[in-house]
């Protein structure tokens, strides 16, 4: 693994207007090429805010982000061309068919014609959606929607893929397909930054994880490394509970 990070985050801080505490509190982090990096944390920990800043959705209050050597302050448009984003919500148009949705998002990346058609057909086939391509997304099952949601972030062949809880609320089979595909594209060189509530999933999928709580990184490393020398913790979830507490979060 190269030691030159593909994502460099330095003292990143986000304070929302009117908020008493920062959503993200001066975090610094390096993510390396070809990693599957998990950003874990309870609700309201700052995961989505961090990913949103990395994707250029809104600016940080303080700090800097470099993606593939490009400063997000100065050349956000270039960064947007090399990243793919799979939002937590099903970010699709429910009245359009799966194919129409993918065609629209492909066009937004500047891909048209037969090239786009080929790519859409390829991904529909990979995710077992060929038969349903011409049905409106509103009639899809949760798992089918999640799969199309993922394809929309992959169409332009991104170098880095950000996924915000990509497997939430879906059946085991769909989850399996998605996770297997993520491993496959990672092998082909795509760096994956991923948030999840599912600790077991993260433990199996990620090379490294950062546990984030109240805007701070409270643990960072390989899941196995985090468990080393701590026989009282059987798995990542035990560490997670230990670090973030048992109090429920809003």
């Amino acid at each position, binding site marked *: 693994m190269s030691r030159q990070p593909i994502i460099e985050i330095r003292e990143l801080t986000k304070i*929302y207007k009117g908020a008493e505490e920062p959503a993200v509190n001066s975090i610094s982090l390096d993510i390396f090429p070809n990693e599957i990096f998990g950003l874990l944390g309870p609700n309201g920990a700052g995961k989505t805010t961090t990913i949103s800043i990395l994707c*250029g959705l809104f600016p940080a209050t303080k700090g800097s982000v470099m993606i593939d050597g490009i400063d997000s302050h100065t050349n956000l448009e270039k960064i*947007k061309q090399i990243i793919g*984003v799979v*939002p937590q919500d099903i*970010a699709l148009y429910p009245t359009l068919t799966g194919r129409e949705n993918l065609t629209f998002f492909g066009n937004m990346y500047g891909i048209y014609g037969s090239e786009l058609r080929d790519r859409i057909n390829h991904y529909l086939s990979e995710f077992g959606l060929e038969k349903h391509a011409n049905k409106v997304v509103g009639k899809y099952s949760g798992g089918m929607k999640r799969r199309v949601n993922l394809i*929309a972030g992959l169409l332009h062949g991104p170098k880095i893929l950000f996924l915000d809880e990509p497997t939430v609320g879906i059946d085991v089979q769909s989850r399996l397909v998605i996770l297997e595909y993520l491993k496959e594209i990672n092998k082909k060189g795509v760096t994956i930054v991923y948030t999840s509530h599912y600790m077991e999933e993260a433990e199996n999928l990620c090379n490294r994880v950062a546990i984030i709580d109240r805007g701070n990184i409270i643990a960072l490393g390989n899941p196995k490394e985090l468990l080393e020398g701590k026989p009282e913790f059987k798995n990542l979830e035990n560490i997670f509970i230990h670090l973030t507490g048992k109090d429920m979060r809003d």
Partner: protein
Amino acid sequence: MLFIMPAVLILISSMMQEFAWGSLAKDSSIPVLFVDNDHDSLGTKVKSGFSGSDAFQIIDSLDHKPLTTVMAKNAVKKGDYLIAIVVPKGATATMRANVRLSVAKVLAGFGMGNPMLVNGISFRDSINVTIFFDPTVKKAFKNAVISSVRENYYRIQTEWVFQNFNQEIAIQMPMYKPPKEAFKEILKFREEYPTYREVELIPNSSQHNVPAWTIFAMFFIVIPLTQSLIQEREGGSLFRLLTMPVSYMTLVMAKVGVYLVVCLTQTAAMLVAGIVLLPLFGLPMLVIGDEIPALFVMTLMVSMAAVGYGLMVGTVFKTHQQAAAFGSISVIILAAIGGLWVPIYLMPASMRALSLLSPMNWAITGYYSIFLRGGDLWQVAPQAIKLLLFFLSTVIITAVYHKYKRPVNS
């Protein structure tokens, strides 16, 4: 729905307005109870005056019985009829006596007749023609009925004054030969509608209604547009779109483009309804005229203003409920103050001033300029420019609000 409902709206509102103007078929006229206790000239003239109008249908008996004052009053009280007119007993005799006395007093001033005799006599008390109105009758309609009764009264009175002068002068001056025609109305009214064209355009309900309701429907684009914007924001599509290598303004302008096409198509459908559909229901056909460039530019500007307004509302308001409530009610308010329902010249001064701020007022002024005055591009330019500036303002507000207040889900 965006195309059919506005066409239905145009059809119904045109029919209603045409009816209100009294130019539809007789079967749509309003029944008026008429009690003639006078049985003389005034009663007959008032009755024939109303009978001659397409807007009213005179009824002088109920259940095969001649109408009495009590019957008429009860019928209106029960809400069976809107209006009842009662001409009192002796009304003509009183009027005639007063006219004769007036003439005699005037002639006495010239030394004709016996001044000593007439100076001692006073005028009889006024007579009351009673009109019973249903409480639901609108003021404007009430005024029209009263004015119609009054018009007949003055016409009779004038004729009698002349007749009496002639008679009295003939008595005093045997050489005097009264003219065969005692009185002729010399003041007549000719309607003209000056326009920019050589051929006069006659205003009718279609020329008024089609542009007015077209504007109204165009601004209702605010509902689907705000729904689309909020759904995109809430559903996460905007989140995804903003992570793509396109600017927010590109996305906004793409949306403007799509909804402009909807608005323009909607307008075309409504104009076609004015030309084809309205005549099928006995209504006047909409005449578009030959100022097509002016019509196109005006329609484009109104569409842009409507779409811009929808963009702004959809960006500023957070939820579907807020946007739908504000959007629909604000469109109705803008239509009301803009003069789409009640002409501006009928509004009080403060409302007239307010109306000048409504984009719908600029729109209707521009359209009337084309449809009723035959105005060209030059004549509609002031309104078109105002609408363009309104559109630009809404886009700027949208962009600024998005940048500082609503960056996606923050």
